[in-house]
């Protein structure tokens, strides 16, 4: 069943500063680099000394037990929270002082653990909102229906349909996003994130609530997206089959601290990880 996703192990090499990246990305600037990233809420150090490097076309995984701080890392990267220490570099640019919208323009896009679609709007409109900063025209041409409005709308429509075709969702374009089945909503969130033309796609538990067959499809699609858009993916996931199946570099978080980093092979055999995470899962 999983034959088609047999990952040929990626050769990982040391990155110029720290951490590892796929060998093919060595000549390129890493899409994400964090240095000593941390945040404390009151007295609680939710994330501490988080260092991560992601290569330009790497598929990376962020795993760890519940409450380890994985989603907090996502919120830090997308500037929902401002870090209390450390640095985030996206494509080499420091994001200090930026807000979420500016981080998005820097090339970082995400999906949410608890799906956040624009429920009352159509599937196509959800994607068009993702295209907002990609295909523009002014407010006046929108109200007065100037030629730039029609041209912009047509380009948005074509691009939205093209993006929806990744998941064969063109037929659903007119459907209300809130009425889609769960799996389709997750896929639509990925399409909306891709519409912002990111260089790094953050997926927060993309396989949550999916059946094994859907997860298989999702794995193929994540790889397909990476290959087609030449982007990096960082995903949080509890489904170890997915993580070990497609991630090239994995970072394990526990109580806000990185306890292990390396290739899937390293992680699978790391006694600290097995004790903190994988071992417990097997018993369950």
């Amino acid at each position, binding site marked *: 069943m999983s034959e088609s996703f047999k990952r040929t192990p990626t050769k990982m090499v040391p990155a110029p500063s720290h951490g590892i990246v796929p060998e093919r990305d060595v000549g390129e600037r890493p899409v994400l680099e964090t240095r000593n990233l941390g945040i404390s809420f009151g007295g609680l150090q939710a994330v501490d000394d988080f260092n991560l490097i992601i290569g330009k076309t790497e598929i990376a995984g962020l795993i760890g037990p519940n409450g380890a701080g994985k989603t907090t890392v996502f919120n830090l990267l997308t500037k929902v929270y401002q870090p209390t220490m450390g640095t985030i570099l996206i494509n080499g640019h420091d994001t200090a002082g930026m807000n979420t919208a500016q981080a*998005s323009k820097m090339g970082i896009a995400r999906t*949410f653990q608890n799906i956040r679609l*624009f429920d009352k709007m159509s599937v196509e409109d959800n994607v068009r909102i993702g295209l*907002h*900063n990609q295909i523009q025209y002014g*407010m006046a041409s929108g109200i007065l229906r100037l030629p730039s409005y029609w041209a912009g709308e047509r380009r948005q429509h074509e691009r939205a349909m093209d993006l929806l075709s990744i998941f064969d969702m063109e037929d659903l374009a007119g459907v209300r996003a809130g009425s889609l089945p769960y799996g389709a909503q997750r896929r639509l969130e990925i399409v*909306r994130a891709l519409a912002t033309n990111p260089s790094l796609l953050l997926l927060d538990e993309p396989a949550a609530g999916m059946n094994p067959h859907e997860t298989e499809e999702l794995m193929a699609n994540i790889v397909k997206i990476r290959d087609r858009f030449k982007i990096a993916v960082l995903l949080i996931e509890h489904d170890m089959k997915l993580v070990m199946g497609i991630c090239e570099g994995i970072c394990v978080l526990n109580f806000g601290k990185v306890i292990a980093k390396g290739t899937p092979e390293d992680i699978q055999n790391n006694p600290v990880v097995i004790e903190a995470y994988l071992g417990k899962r097997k018993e369950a």
Partner: protein
Amino acid sequence: MKRNRKLAEKLITFGIVIAAFLLCKILIGTGVMSRSLRGQLIPICVYICMAVSLNLTVGISGELSLGHAGFMSVGAFSGIVAAMWLSKGVGVESQLHCLLFAILVGGALAGAAGVVIGIPVLRLRGDYLAIVTLAFGEIIRNVMNCIYVSLDGSTLRFGFINPGLPGKILLNGPMGATGVKKMASFEIGFVLVLFTLFVVLNLIDSRDGRAIMAIRDSRIAAESVGLNVTKYKMMAFVTSAVLAGMAGALYGLNFSTVAPAMFKFDTSILVLVFVVLGGIGNIRGSVISATLLTMLPELLRAFSDYRMLVYAIVLILVMIFTNNPKLKNAVGRLLPRRGASGKEAE
């Protein structure tokens, strides 16, 4: 196909307004329409514009604003001053030109007020925003109570708190404007309604309108795809203020006496009632409810003293009938077409 449906929806809305206008014209022409109802025509146009513009803030942008009458008041008084200056000070004969100028000035100044108020207000959310808009509405009314404007030759003179200005007084503090020439006409009111609908409906169905609605539906998701939340909230709020100011200018030039007290908190609530009754976010509903509810007190004249009581009862009944899921289901079961959805609910 989707685009066609949207276009059809829009054409239906415009069609209803145009048909109602033509019907009124026929009724006036044949003399069927009563005098009192004829006097209501311009206020109806004004309240339609007010309701549609408030729906942009409340329904489309999702911010409960309780100070909409403030923008109407800014538009009304600046419109009156602009029209009087143009007709008396500059000597422009055409009433139509004066009225259009007044509407433009009213819209512009209300828009400026919208920017000034929007900057602090739109930092707040939910109930807090509502209360602060209420406060700003009252501030505008109190400021209007203190503004004195006179026309000295062709120059306008402004004063604050009873300064005894030379020349012909246009705005006299709490007395407001007196001796205003009635320039408003039903035709211009109709055009203003079409203009307001054109702006709001086209804005909703454009890139910016989608951004505004996206922020309403999920602020976090909207930010995550790179939408500038402040910009689009501001866009909706200021557009709404401009349209309210234009309606206010028309309203001001429809009466011989206009006082700041006419734009009280009650007026904001009245417009909000139109919006809620017509359906939050439903533009056509706002048009219909503003029309019917403005006419209702006239139509209820037969009840004489109990008029406002009946008005209130009608309001309560309509609210119950449109928002009670049980009643909706009951109606749904009676209609054969919607039988399936009724079963789903069970």
